[in-house]
């Protein structure tokens, strides 16, 4: 949603978005970085503070609204999407943000999550994915890898994990992106993109739980491995990665392949990212290999897919406007009397 910046309003600073509550996440938690980036980006959006609403479910990440000096609701497990839907449908002028985690949105709230995406309400969804249940102290989550040993899976998890990007595309989301807690600039970039998108913006954020699942995303976030293991995608740009930007992705039919740009291939041969290409977005979403497997593909970060589609909130309110235009403002006496009456004297 793009709003004209009100030049007369006092410029807000990140501090204006810090609430008076002590932040109670564990020291070293990836959530701190995400909170800071949100507080950094919001003042630049040119909206008064009272127009922002943060709605969350249950879990570590869902404490987020308490730390924002905006309107906020910390609701019940998995239901933030439904609550945000009611709010945005009835108050479309508000900037509604949903804060959720992998357990909250992909397990108990999975149903609301996919329906939010298909309806395309204009809500920004920040999905903190740490691949573990933190608040309940360390059970596997629906994004934990197979074989994961946790308190509830002493012999290893036998659940096949969700791929949140593929799930979102499958639910016909209109904006799908991935970023990571350790890359503040990239988070900010994704937050701005998500905010500017009209429709549900799904931003998956790889977030380290240093207490129960430390290092889950290390291979993507650590300097030593990041360049070889990640693929930062940008619209209209070729898919290039690697220590010296020396690797690229080509499409062999529908099959993606890593090629060496120093040996026979050039950037011009590489797959050029197109955010509006649904087929290719689905192929990119499947770059989800275990990084320990030989010949695996790098993990993409950035906007996978972004297309315009009418939002549920706009269409609902258009129907109301149309009904008023067509039938006039509701007249209670006419409604109650109905079409057939009789008089007793």
């Amino acid at each position, binding site marked *: 949603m793009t709003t004209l910046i009100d030049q007369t309003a006092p410029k807000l600073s990140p501090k204006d978005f810090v609430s008076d509550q002590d932040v109670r996440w564990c020291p070293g938690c990836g959530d701190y970085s995400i909170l800071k980036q949100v507080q950094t980006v919001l003042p630049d959006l040119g909206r008064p503070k009272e127009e922002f609403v943060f709605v969350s479910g249950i879990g570590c990440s869902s404490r987020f609204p308490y730390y924002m000096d905006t309107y906020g*609701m910390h609701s019940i497990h998995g239901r933030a999407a439904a609550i945000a*839907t*009611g709010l945005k449908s*009835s108050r479309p002028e508000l900037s509604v943000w949903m804060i959720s985690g992998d357990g909250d949105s992909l397990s108990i709230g999975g149903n609301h999550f996919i329906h939010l995406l298909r309806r395309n309400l204009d809500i920004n969804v920040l999905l903190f994915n740490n691949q573990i249940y933190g608040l309940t102290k360390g059970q596997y989550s629906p994004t934990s890898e197979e074989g994961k040993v946790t308190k509830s899976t002493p012999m290893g998890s036998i659940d096949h994990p969700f791929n949140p990007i593929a799930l979102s595309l499958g639910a016909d989301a209109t904006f799908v992106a991935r970023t990571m807690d350790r890359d503040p600039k990239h988070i900010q970039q994704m937050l701005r993109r998500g905010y500017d998108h009209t429709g549900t913006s799904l931003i998956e954020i790889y977030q380290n739980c240093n207490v129960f699942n430390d290092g889950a995303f290390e291979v993507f976030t650590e300097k030593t491995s990041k360049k070889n293991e990640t693929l930062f995608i940008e619209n209209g740009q070729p898919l290039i990665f690697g220590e010296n930007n020396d690797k690229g992705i080509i499409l062999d039919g529908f099959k993606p392949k890593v090629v060496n740009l120093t040996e026979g291939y050039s950037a011009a041969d590489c797959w050029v990212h197109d955010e509006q290409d649904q087929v290719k977005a689905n192929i990119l979403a499947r770059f989800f290999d275990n990084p320990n497997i030989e010949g695996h593909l790098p993990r993409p970060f950035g906007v996978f897919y972004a297309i315009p589609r009418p939002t549920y909130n706009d269409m609902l309110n258009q*129907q*109301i406007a149309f009904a*008023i235009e067509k*039938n006039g403002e509701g007249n*209670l006496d006419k409604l109650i009397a109905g079409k057939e009456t*009789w008089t007793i004297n």
Partner: protein
Amino acid sequence: METTEEQILESVVIRFAGDSGDGMQLTGTQFTNAAAMYGNDLATFPDFPAEIRAPQGTLAGVSGYQIHFGSKKINTPGDTCDVLVAMNVAALKANIEQLKPGGTIIVNSDGFDSKNLRLANVPEDQNPLENGSLDKFEVKKLDITKITRLALADSGMGTKEIDRTKNMFVLGLIYWMYNRSIDKSIEFINSKFKNKPQIADANIKLLKAGYHYGETTETFNSRYEIKAAEMPAGVYRSIMGNQALAYGLVAASVKSGLPIFLGTYPITPASDILHELSKYKNFGVRTFQAEDEIAGVCAAIGASYGGSIGITTSSGPGIALKMEAIGLATVLELPLVICNIQRGGPSTGLPTKTEQSDLMQALYGRNGECPVPVIAAATPLDCFDMAFEAVRIAAQHMIPVFLLSDGYIANGAEPWCFPQSKDLPEIKIDFAKATEEKFMPYARDEKLSRPWAVPGTPGLEHRIGGLEKQHITGNISYDAHNHEFMVKLRQEKVDKIADEIPLQTIDNGPEKGEVLIIGWGSTYGAIKTAVGALVLEGKSVAHAHIRYLNPLPKNIGELLKNYNKVIVAEMNNGQLIKILRDRFLVDAIGLNKIQGQPFTTEEIKTKLSEILG
């Protein structure tokens, strides 16, 4: 042709019964409208299977519609019927017990062939039309199927389509029998089949055929006249409970200035409220058919947070799913109206049958100490007032309110001397505005209600959530004493509502006496009729009907002491009785029926007579 004899009757009960695909509900509602327009008082009882098209010809597939209309005050659809229309063997078998001795049966003889006998589990040699079992009734045997097919032989329509119009023949015939005009039904057919003129013509043809059949054949030697009832002067319409409930919500929205947001999921018998409200978008009504029951109530909570009146509608199984969210709304202290159109339970239970077994669920069905106001509509008309009241309490007290109705009143119809908008009270709502003082989201007014501060209001940015609140600040608090204080405070907030609700009155009978019968919800009509009859006989029996179940009216305890015996009549295994015993230590006697069917007047009279001795 002999002239038919005209008889004047005070009231008549007709029961239309057929296969669920036979159009008996439509026939019943059309006749109801005609009776209402004529000025009769009336009550109706649709009784249909849960399956849309249950196996044809079987007992499970029988759909019934009973109407009781008269020139006197009518409170119930009637215990037994004077006229039974039976479109097949199964319909006859399922309803014959409800027919009064000497009553009239109109049967479609085509529905009594060997196939229909087999489907209804009636031995071939036991055809009720031939074995004399109906001798004590007046049986009118008509081959309605044959007549219909003949009438439409040249219509170019298929047999299946033709057969579908046979209910119109029945309707026309009944119109003739009771001296009613077919004009309104012709208008209705023309409007319903606006784009299918062939179907419209066929239906009208059969409607007229039925009427003329009565007029020209000598099958019926009497015709009946039921004069208009003496009802208070005014403008009337006919209305069903769910419709009245929807209107009550819209009226409260208009009178409060709060736009309606309905978050819901289809479920029998509540879905009609969604259908109804979805038509009123020009009132600013937003309806959201959610992915499930939980999303329905949660979206309503989100909308209430934003300054709408959030409403959710459902029945028992759906309410069970919503309970966690209702607990959230209780702690958030946001307005929310939960309409439970009760049906037989537990689990999926009896979806299309009526019961009052969710009272305990409404009162106690949440985790933690989680009191909420509970009110119940007594009649189809009362659904309007109580829906209005539910919105008022929810919005003025910042609290979720349960409104209980049930399948019986939801689908039952009554004539309604409807109110004018100007006569309805305003519902005053004050949204919070910033002041110089720091905003305290959990500060309270004299009702113990907290401010409604909607997003978008400058200076009132605050956070709310399901974790326990610190008194006044609303910050998270795990303090032991604060929790106990807040639990008691939320209880007191509900209790204080008793300050503004009406005191309990005695509906009928002496202020002091031998027996008091207490009812709540849809049992009103049956109790009223039974008590009315006994009072006329000079019996010391009174009737009180409770509409406010939590908090209870302040004078209930005193009132109970004025009678030697207290009976609590409920369509459950004894729920309100437990509340009354708990609160007032009264040794009440239960009168319970759990058959998916409303009480008959006779059942209540019998019990009362037994207690009166």
